[in-house]
């Protein structure tokens, strides 16, 4: 037997107190007065030894009481295999944390994990219950605590299949902590995993185990397995040419491949577009290193296409041997350029800007103002109205209809701009209510520049900190002082603080847009076209006006992708659907859960988005971290084991407490003590009753003694 608080056993020494009291009382035992011993003397009886302890039962009861109290406070328990079940609750909660990340699909790890889970369940006692938790980058509790092994085994078969998501041990431990806190019984946790090093994210909180919870590590594979993967793909989603104009760069990594190929491994990369192989490249991947390959010049059909690059031959983890990407071949957007100026310089600057790059997104179509009156506008991606005076005919109204139908209008002010006429023609489309022509004094500062702009706006996204100089260097000599614009409409200001670029969006039902540049782009009022920032500025401005999407070619699971990137910034289509790579339709609440429509990517492959009689694709790829199957180092595993051991030690330290709480001997001892107290009281009262018969004579003797003494 062991004791939870052995120091209380010292209280057992107090058993000497009743013994001493009985002896002392015996020595000082008051004789019972009796009238005459005349008749007692005639009775032959054995002499009672004065040394004999009287009232043995009473003494024994008092000694036993002291011993029982000391034992109860010492909290005894039995440990070891022979430890009894005890009288308290003995059930434990088994929590199986099963790694279901992508790396668990390597080889037979999944099968081993299932076997380990069954092995853990095999340790359950009759009263134990179990919960299964599947985790990767998220933790999913598969069941409520149950002791039904049939259910548990069924969950192992169906619920512990590895998926496509990366590993994050922190989520598993947080889930364990929550379950342990909610459980009313001790918890035995089993972490079943390949203990991939990359699963421990940098900056994660130190591994900790709730005190009283035991954690056992069950590795399914402790060897460093070789693995190659297509880890990076540099590709732009949108193209406006039939032949992909850019270089498609692919990076192939080899992890722990030295054992398989001490020098380098020869691999091949196959490029498929819509399932048809269009190109193949050979790469030699050095051991533990990386290699790159480039694909270019492949043909694309119009519309959305599905691309993939697959590494051959495959290896133990084929899921990371392929990289998916989505391409969309579109027609270059037509931009209608309307100007009131006779000079063609601004158009030239714009044309050059739009034609820059290998895959121009827009083409510029200059038209005279008068001709635009009858031009159908709805086919244009954007319209630039530059340095215009009065708008002829119904142009103003038609521009308004165009914007309200979802079009984008770029207003560029110049020396010929008639603000009043513009205001009459465009009315509420204008982001400003007033404008006054202003010229920078040549005898003073001579020019102004752009002072600040909204770096978070899509127009200025390309202008990183270092690239901002290209835009800020532009000089403005003339401009319009705009007034009546709210701060939210101002995208850029001059160095004087006056608005330089204003924007309005969500105009009309189709979310049309308007941009207003307070100066010209014709190298007259400013030299903006001469600066490097002009090209990306014009590109982004037109993309903004055209509500072009900014969807990347591929995503890494898990991801939540806003579908606005698919259909652009236009209004959400009335109906749309999202199909996962297996062809299952995502539910509406999944796609609209975040407010704006989105698709949740958890599988590898292509998600198909159908809307407005169009089909587009979203590519989902595995997290590159999962490709590195390197397990935790010995030091890390030792640290993990020690932490688990601390938890186990805590559990071990808690085990005696748990054993004691289950066995609950202390209350049995206290109950016995209560019974002894009652018995002692009865015995004590019996003795008092006997002495009471002689008490009156005793009192009389005392009074007489006192009288004599006085």
């Amino acid at each position, binding site marked *: 037997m062991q004791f939870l608080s052995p120091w209380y056993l010292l209280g057992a020494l107090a058993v000497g107190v009743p013994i001493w009291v009985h002896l002392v009382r015996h020595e000082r035992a008051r004789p*019972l*007065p009796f*009238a005459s*011993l*005349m*008749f007692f003397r005639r009775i032959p*009886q054995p002499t009672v030894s004065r040394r004999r302890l009287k009232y043995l039962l009473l003494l024994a009861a008092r000694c036993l009481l002291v011993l029982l109290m000391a034992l109860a406070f010492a909290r005894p328990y039995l440990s070891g295999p022979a430890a009894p079940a005890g009288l308290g609750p003995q059930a434990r909660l088994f929590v199986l944390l099963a790694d279901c990340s992508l790396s668990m699909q390597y080889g037979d790890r999944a099968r081993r994990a299932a076997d380990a889970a069954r092995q853990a369940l095999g340790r359950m006692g009759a009263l134990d219950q179990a919960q299964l938790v599947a985790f990767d980058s998220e933790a999913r509790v598969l069941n409520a605590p149950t002791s039904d092994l049939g259910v548990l085994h069924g969950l192992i078969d169906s619920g512990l299949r590895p998926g496509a998501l990366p590993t994050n041990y922190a989520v598993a431990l947080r889930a364990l902590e929550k379950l342990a806190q909610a459980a009313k019984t001790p918890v035995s946790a089993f972490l079943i995993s390949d203990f991939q090093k990359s699963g421990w994210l940098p900056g994660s909180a130190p591994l900790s185990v709730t005190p009283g919870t035991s954690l056992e590590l069950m590795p399914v594979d402790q060897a460093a397995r070789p693995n190659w993967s297509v880890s990076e793909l540099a590709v732009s989603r949108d193209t406006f040419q039939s032949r992909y104009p850019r270089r498609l760069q692919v990076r192939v990594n080899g992890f722990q491949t030295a054992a398989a190929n001490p020098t380098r491994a020869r691999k091949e990369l196959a490029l498929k577009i819509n399932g048809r192989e269009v190109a193949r490249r050979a790469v030699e991947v050095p051991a533990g290193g990386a290699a790159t390959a480039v694909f270019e010049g492949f043909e694309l059909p119009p519309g959305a296409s599905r691309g993939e690059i697959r590494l051959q031959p495959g290896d133990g983890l084929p899921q990371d041997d392929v990289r998916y990407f989505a391409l969309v071949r579109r027609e270059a957007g037509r931009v209608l350029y309307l100007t009131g100026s006779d000079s063609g310089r601004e158009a030239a600057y714009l044309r050059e800007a739009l034609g820059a790059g290998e895959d121009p997104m827009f083409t510029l179509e200059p038209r005279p103002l008068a001709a635009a009156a009858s031009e159908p506008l709805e086919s244009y991606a954007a319209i630039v109205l530059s340095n215009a005076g009065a708008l002829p005919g119904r142009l103003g109204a038609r521009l308004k209809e165009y914007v309200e139908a979802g079009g984008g209008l770029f207003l560029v002010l110049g020396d010929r701009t008639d603000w009043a006429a513009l205001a009459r023609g465009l009315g509420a489309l204008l982001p400003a209510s007033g404008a006054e022509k202003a010229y920078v004094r040549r005898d003073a500062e001579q020019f102004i520049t752009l002072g600040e702009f909204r770096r978070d706006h899509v127009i200025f996204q390309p202008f990183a900190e270092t690239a901002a100089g290209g835009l800020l260097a532009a000089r403005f000599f003339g401009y319009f002082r705009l007034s009546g614009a709210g701060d939210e409409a101002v995208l850029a200001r001059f160095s004087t603080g006056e608005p330089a670029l204003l924007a309005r969006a969500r105009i009309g039902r189709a979310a049309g847009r308007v941009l207003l540049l307070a100066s010209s782009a014709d190298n007259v009022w400013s030299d903006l076209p001469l600066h490097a920032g002009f090209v990306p500025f014009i590109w982004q401005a037109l993309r903004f006006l055209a509500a072009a999407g900014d969807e990347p070619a591929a995503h890494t699971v898990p991801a939540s992708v806003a579908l606005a990137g698919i259909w652009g910034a236009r209004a959400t289509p009335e109906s749309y659907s999202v199909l996962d790579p297996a062809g299952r339709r995502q539910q509406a609440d999944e796609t609209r859960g975040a407010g704006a429509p989105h698709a949740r990517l958890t599988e590898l492959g292509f998600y198909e988005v159908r809307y407005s009689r169009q089909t587009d694709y979203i590519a989902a790829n595995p997290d590159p971290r999962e490709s590195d199957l390197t397990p935790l180092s010995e030091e890390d595993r030792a640290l993990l084991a020690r932490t688990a051991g601390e938890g186990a030690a805590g559990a071990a330290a808690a085990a005696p407490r748990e054993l004691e709480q289950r066995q609950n001997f202390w209350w049995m001892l206290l109950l016995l003590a209560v019974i002894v107290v009652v018995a002692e009281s009865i015995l004590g009262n019996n003795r008092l009753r006997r002495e009471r018969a*002689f008490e009156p004579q005793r009192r*009389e003797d005392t009074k*007489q003694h006192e009288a004599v003494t006085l």
Partner: protein
Amino acid sequence: MIFAATARAERFLDPGVLARIANLQLAARTVVEGFIAGLHRSPQYGLSPEFAEYRPYTPGDDPRSVDWNVFARTDRYYIKKYPGETNTRVYIALDVSRSMGYRSGALSKLEYGSLLAASLAYFALRQRDAAGLILFDTEIREFIPPRLRPGQMSQVLRALEAARPGRGTDFCSSLDKLAQFVRHRSLVAIVSDLYEEPERLSGAFRRVQFGRNDLMVFHVLDPNEVSPDLRDAAVLEDLETRDRMDVAPAYVQREYRKLIGQHMEQLRLACRDSRLDYLMMNTAQPLDEALFNFLSLRQRKS
């Protein structure tokens, strides 16, 4: 019949209750008042101014009762006797030894005996008998000659109230001395716990009886002396000798009770043989019941 009617008609207080009455006179009166008949049939009540006869003077007689005319004529002392003085002299001898101080209840034997003695004195005086008191333990501690005069009862009661358990007991010596005081044809009531051998007690009683004295023995014991409640080994201490003895309950239960029963029986037989009236009383017994029993006995004898 009168006594029977009285006994049926009234019940006196339990001695334990009477003990709470501080005034012993009141207590005695309370006990006795219910009875009509006295110790003996005395046709005379109250003082009578008529002269009845002379009797020789004895030491202790009131000098005021001496007939000086007779002395002048005869040079001898004679006491005038009146009709009221022709009744009996009652000597009440109360054992005040230490053992009489024993108690297990509300009353000690001495208190109970005092109450009994006071009741007898009151009864006697009420019957126009001269009552006197003798307190003794190893020797005579107090002697009040029996008289019939105002103040006699108060004197007796004062002596009883002042009585405290004394030392040991020398019963025979005390009774021998008592016999010297007792006039002939007197009534002697002995109240004691009689812790003495029956043979010695019988001899002492006979010596008191000499002179045709009428002897009544009231054997007063505490209930715990008759049936001690001892269930465990105990150390008992003799109140008089201060001797201590370890006693085992088993022996007490059987042997002691047999012995004290034998003792009481021997005393009863010895008193019967000596034609003495013997009454066993325990302090838990109501005093009126004891007196009723006694008077019934006396009535049958007369």
